[in-house]
């Protein structure tokens, strides 16, 4: 890792609300190369907000600060709107949790993919179409031409999620942020989707941030894992070492899951230590 693809230092996201200020992300730092980085943590621990802040998509009352927030040497905080827009979708993409809500319901899947492509590449309609079809094929869509002209509500969750991936990868980005890309899907289908993502990373050398609350999944899928708690990274470790995590929080999370393998009863629960949040 000579020069990291993404360099984040002391990232903070605050929401100034009527009821006070909520700090959703509190000083997250990490570096990312061309690898699979997992971010895990409980609901509300700031995983999604971290991902969105990188893309500059923090919703309105939010405020983002960071000591450093650089992508491939480009300072994302100082970049012009134009540059940001070119980066977004062009070099950094994001796959979101639920295809049901994140695909525009009134546009066909094909249109949406073409649109993403044409936003960044000068291409004729026909070229873009070919490219979109190729992309649909790349995500193992069985009948790309048919899916191309379907509306989001006409495809199943798994197909939708694959369409979403196709849409986000059509421009060959260097970095993909996947925010719980499979949690809306059935287990069997989600394995399919993960396999596609995995192939893309290994074949294209893309950087991947994989956000999930499923530790089992992250440990088996990613190279490296950040464990977040209350807006902070409490532990960072190699995925395969997750079982040997040091932090009691991580340990607790690992242990409280029931497994097929052994039948622990009662299940151990997590005793939150206020000190973790500090």
């Amino acid at each position: 890792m000579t020069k990291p693809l993404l360099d984040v230092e002391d990232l903070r996201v605050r929401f100034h609300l009527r009821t006070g200020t909520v700090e959703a992300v509190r000083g997250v730092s990490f570096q990312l190369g061309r690898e699979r980085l997992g971010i895990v943590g409980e609901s509300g621990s700031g995983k999604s907000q971290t991902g969105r802040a990188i893309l500059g998509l923090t919703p309105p009352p939010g405020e983002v600060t960071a000591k450093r927030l650089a992508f491939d040497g480009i300072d994302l905080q100082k970049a012009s709107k134009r540059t940001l827009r070119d980066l977004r979708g062009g070099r950094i993409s994001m796959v979101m949790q639920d295809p049901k809500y994140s695909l525009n319901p009134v546009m066909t899947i094909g249109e949406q993919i073409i649109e993403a492509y044409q936003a960044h590449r000068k291409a004729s309609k026909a070229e873009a179409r070919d490219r979109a079809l190729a992309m649909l094929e790349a995500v193992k869509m069985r009948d790309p031409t048919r899916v191309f002209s379907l509306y989001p509500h006409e495809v199943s969750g798994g197909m939708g999620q694959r369409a979403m991936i196709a849409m986000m990868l059509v421009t060959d980005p260097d970095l993909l942020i996947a925010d719980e890309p499979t949690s809306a899907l059935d287990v069997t289908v989600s394995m399919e989707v993960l396999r596609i993502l995995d192939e893309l990373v290994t074949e294209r050398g893309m950087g991947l941030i994989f956000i999930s609350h499923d530790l089992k999944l992250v440990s088996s899928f990613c190279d490296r894992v950040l464990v977040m708690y209350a807006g902070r990274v409490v532990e960072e470790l190699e995925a395969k070492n997750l079982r040997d995590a040091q932090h009691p929080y991580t340990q607790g999370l690992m242990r409280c899951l029931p497994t097929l393998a052994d039948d622990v009863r009662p299940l151990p629960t997590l005793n939150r230590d206020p000190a973790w949040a500090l």
Partner: protein
Amino acid sequence: MAGAPPFPQPSGLQAWLLSAEPNSRWQARLGRGYLGWRSFTKNPLAVLGLAIVILLVLVAAFADFIAPYSPIVGGDLRTERLLPPSETYWLGTDDQARDIFSRIIYGSRITLFVVILVSIIATPVGLLVGTVSGYLGGWVDTVLMRITDIFLAFPRLVLALAFVAALGPGIENAVIAIAITSWPPYARIARAETLMIRNSDFIAAVKLQGASTPRIIMGHVVPLCVSSLIVRVTLDMAGIILTAAGLGFLGLGAQPPMPEWGAMVATGRNYLIDQWWVAAMPGIAIFVVSLGFNLLGDGLRDVLDPKAAK
């Protein structure tokens, strides 16, 4: 909770109100109200709206003390008629040599009366029809919605006019007529809302407790539709005042010499170009009050309607 505590440390009464562990129903309710009030007061326009409405109520209550002249008995027709605003008559006088300011002050009572009466007639009707129709579905829904459609498709004026004609003119009947023409949209809103609610798990849960349909509608569905209806009704207030004015205009609303604002504007129509104040002053009053209700409605929407408050 992630991050810093959302509220600055509260104290005393505030703490009691905001307690996450209320000790009684009352405390829970008040606490909820207080939270709503807090988010309401953060919106200066909504507060302005509320202030206007409160002012209206106060003016109506203390009209006797505020108004310098009689709203009914005019001055000398020869010398005090159609005078422009001056120090004696702040807002001028009308064609019957009456003080427009005093009339507006007293008119606030009628306005308030109309607005309140229409809302307490039309809202429950719309609410009931909408929730029952939405909740029961099937042929009940078809029949009720067809009726609603008929009333919606009716030229409002025809209905109101005919109704007033049947009952005889007068402000009370005008109010009933307006109420009759204004419930259908409320029914529609309530129905749409009910359709969303009726398949939700918490309704399924009460069903599983063996609750009867009326109980579910009244105790569980209606409370959730009320807030969006309240918002809609406050937003409709201006329209209601103006419709009352419109009926007054056709001689079917308030009876002369009642100082009903709409009727005053209507009279002023004859003097619009040269004696502008006769129509303009009550017109401004209507505008201000509508503005008040509208702002209030917008503010309430943010507090009561979770969908709109994002």
